[in-house]
């Protein structure tokens, strides 16, 4: 039963991930990303980490990808646009990604010591255990991440702020100069 | 003036082709356009950059039809212009013909005309309130106002047999006298109506969401309103005290007491308040008329065949529910008018719409279409 669920969602995750990369329409890619993330969340739950699984759905599937979709729809990145980027650039970045991913895999495999992990117990996967680990052992990283997010939020607010009347007048003036210069 | 916008050649693929702006064809099949108005919009997100009303979807050539029929046969054509305010259309048209032919309307007929016209004003405003509220999302006032409008239309039906296209006035007077018991039923409705108006206002006037959607939306400064030739509650909402019933009294409006409400800010909320007060004032007028209703004939002495003199021309405008409804008639010595031009309030008020909705959101647009109170039958004729 577990194996069956695993197989279904593992297959779904990989297949959807392939669609994300391969599909020409960015909207379909984004929708496939939703399936990937959802399937991975199911795999998390199968691995005995329901909290992370649910958070994965709540944050990534439910919020972040929606924003992706929102932006794609607003900008209406059509099929043509995805082909504008040169194949050489694509190839370069694909190779770069492959190399870095491969080295990560090698690193992970080489550092993996053949040791038997303790079987999952209700205490180990419980929220309380997770919380106490997070707030005792990893308190500093946790706080730093919180700070980072706050900085990001403030940055976003500043970036999205509507310009004041004077500022927008100034930019308008600049623009008019630019267009005048641009015209012979 | 706004230039006509070109529609994008391909509506399917390039929704935002080449610019941040999108073309949106709002209507003619749209629930909020009150008929077959079409607006070509250029929008940026939901903000309207430019709008251009496209009219003519209900054009029936009414003005040409006027030339093909004798004066008294043209009254049904006027019914079908502003089809929710037929009585005032009739009144404007027969008033023009009477001026042209020099007919004097007897006092009883004039008094009944005022009653009919004010009933029509109330019914038109009730319809406006219903659709305006439904556009802004409040559906319940619609059913409340239609409940009262139903009784009002019953009164019309009792008088002339029709509920919408009344055909209830004739050059020189009225076709029928009031039926027995009519004044009593009318008085009962008038006694009832102020309470009902309070009921509508309870749902809307102090509602925070209603105020958020109307206060400061579509401000029409008085100078701009006058420049566009806007009339009626639209003009008075901008704070201009101009009402033809007071300024150029006709049909004995100088013999009744009433007040002309004006707005302060010229926004959608002010126009709403102005119309609500106008309904109460209409009730007041009708009550006075019912009280003093004189006895006597309802039709003036008139020639068997009505002919206008050669090159006789006349313009006569009255205060309809939506603004100044006027008829310009030229005679050529035959029983038919040589030319008849209508000054339709809806058409002229509609011209201010692009001005009103500059920079507004799509949600505001429906409120603004509602507040201009247009009837496409009159815009297109």
């Amino acid at each position: 039963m577990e194996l069956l669920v695993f197989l279904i969602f593992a297959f779904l995750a990989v297949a959807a991930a392939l669609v994300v990369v391969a599909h020409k329409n960015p909207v379909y890619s984004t929708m496939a990303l939703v399936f990937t993330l959802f399937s991975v969340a199911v795999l998390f739950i199968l691995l005995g980490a329901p909290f992370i699984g649910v958070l994965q759905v709540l944050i990534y599937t439910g919020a972040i990808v929606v924003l992706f979709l929102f932006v794609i729809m607003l900008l209406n990145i059509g099929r043509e646009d995805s082909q504008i980027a040169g194949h050489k650039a694509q190839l370069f970045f694909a190779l770069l990604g492959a190399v870095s991913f491969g080295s990560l895999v090698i690193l992970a495999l080489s550092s993996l010591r053949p040791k038997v992990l303790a079987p999952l117990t209700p205490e180990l996967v419980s929220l309380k255990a997770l919380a106490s680990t997070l707030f005792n052992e990893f308190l500093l990283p946790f706080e730093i991440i919180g700070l980072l997010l706050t900085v990001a939020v403030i940055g976003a607010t500043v970036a999205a702020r509507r310009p004041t009347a004077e500022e927008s007048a100034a930019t308008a003036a600049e623009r008019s100069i630019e267009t005048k210069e641009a015209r012979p | 003036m706004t230039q006509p916008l070109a529609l994008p050649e391909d509506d399917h693929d390039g929704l935002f082709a080449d610019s941040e702006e999108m073309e949106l064809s709002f209507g003619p099949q749209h629930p909020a356009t009150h008929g077959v108005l079409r607006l070509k919009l250029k929008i940026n997100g939901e903000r309207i950059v430019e709008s251009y009303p496209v009219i003519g979807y209900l054009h029936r050539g009414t003005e040409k039809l006027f030339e093909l029929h004798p004066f008294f046969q043209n009254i049904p054509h006027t019914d079908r212009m502003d089809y929710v305010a037929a009585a005032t259309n009739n009144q404007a048209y027969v008033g023009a013909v009477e001026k042209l032919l020099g007919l004097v309307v007897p006092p009883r007929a004039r008094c009944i005309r005022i009653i009919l016209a004010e009933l029509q004003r109330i019914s038109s405003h009730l319809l406006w309130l219903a659709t305006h509220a439904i556009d802004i999302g409040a559906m319940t006032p619609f059913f409340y106002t239609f409940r009262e409008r139903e009784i009002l239309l019953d009164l019309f039906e009792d008088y002339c047999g029709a509920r919408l296209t009344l055909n209830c006035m004739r050059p020189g007077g009225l076709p029928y006298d009031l039926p027995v018991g009519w004044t009593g039923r009318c008085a009962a409705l008038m006694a009832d109506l102020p309470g009902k108006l309070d009921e509508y206002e309870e749902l809307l006037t102090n509602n925070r969401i209603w105020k958020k959607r109307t206060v400061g939306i579509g401000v029409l400064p008085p100078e701009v309103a006058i420049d566009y030739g806007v009339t009626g509650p639209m003009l008075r909402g901008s704070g201009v005290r101009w009402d033809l019933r007071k300024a150029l009294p006709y049909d004995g409006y100088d013999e009744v007491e009433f007040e002309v409400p004006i707005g302060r800010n010229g926004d959608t909320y002010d126009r709403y308040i102005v119309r609500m007060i106008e309904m109460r004032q209409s009730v007041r007028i009708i009550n006075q008329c019912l009280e003093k209703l004189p006895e006597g004939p309802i039709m003036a002495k008139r020639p068997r065949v009505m002919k206008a003199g050669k090159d006789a021309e006349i313009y006569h405008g009255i205060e309809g529910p939506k603004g100044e409804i006027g008829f310009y008639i030229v005679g050529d010595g035959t029983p038919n008018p040589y030319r008849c031009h209508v000054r339709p309030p809806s058409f002229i008020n509609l011209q201010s719409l692009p001005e009103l909705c500059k920079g507004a959101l799509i949600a505001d647009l429906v409120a603004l279409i509602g507040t201009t109170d247009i009837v496409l039958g009159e815009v297109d004729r």
Partner: protein
Amino acid sequence: MNVDVVVTVAKIAVVLGLLLQVAPIMVWVERRGSAMMQDRPGPNRLGPFGLFQALADAVKFLFKEDVTPAAADKPLYLMAPALALLPAFTTSVVIPWGPNFTWDGKEYAFTVSNADTGVLLFLALASLGVYSLVMAGYASNNKFSLLGSIRASAQLISYELAMTVAVLAVIIPVGSFHLTDVVAYQRTNTWNCLLQPFGFLVFCIAAFAETNRLPFDLPEAESELVAGFHTEYSAMRFAAFFQAEYTSMAALSALGCTLFLGGWSLPWLNYEGMGWLGVALGLGTLLAKVGVCMFVFVWVRWTFPRFRYDQLMRLGWKFLLPVALLNLIAVSAMTLAGWL
């Protein structure tokens, strides 16, 4: 056969059976309720009090032509209504519908899933609801639909935040994501709507926005966007959106009742001592509470005008979220101080 499996299947059957009844009943309530408020009879020809009208509607939806626009993005267009039903029906798995019951000497909680993550699972699944709206709007290839789905995605994300924060404030004093624990907490103390009135307020407003109900029905605002994201849908696919809306209203009402209104319990009543009667009574109590909430949804819809898009955003970000955050901080402090 395994008793656990039987019990789980039975629980799923009960919950699903209840949820499937929501839409027809609500259609009737909405019509007759609005008619009552608007001084008119409403549909009264089919069956007693027009009760069979919903049945007639279902038949109509089944037999109407299912139109797919030529320019639509077909796969997404066809998938969207199905996706709309998914969160609506799955979220209710974590709701406790009554007191624990014993079967074959073993005690079971009256929830389909008693997962550790409880209410988080609800929020996670509910957050998937936005995809169907966005897909429907995009795939229809209609400008009004697109505007509707853009509104929907912005609105749902904004109000999800406020709602999540309001829910978290309930969780803190309870110390558990289990909704059964939330109900138990309210039985020993008092209902959370009295303990956290501001959280309750935020939750209620957010619930209206999350279910696209007036005054927040902007994604489908019929006077502005024709019908918003489902403009192009007809027949059963349209009915699927309809059903999803009512079902998610019911699910959110059940969550709201469980979090703030004591769940399936009434004060001073000992359900445990009554055996199966207690279970039935608990279920009945929760259903009655949900019914009241649903009626409030209907009542508000026929009373208020609609907000504007920017006003909605302002309300969400500048009023609801700060209030929810302040409420969270206050509740945390009070929990630390031991007052809650």
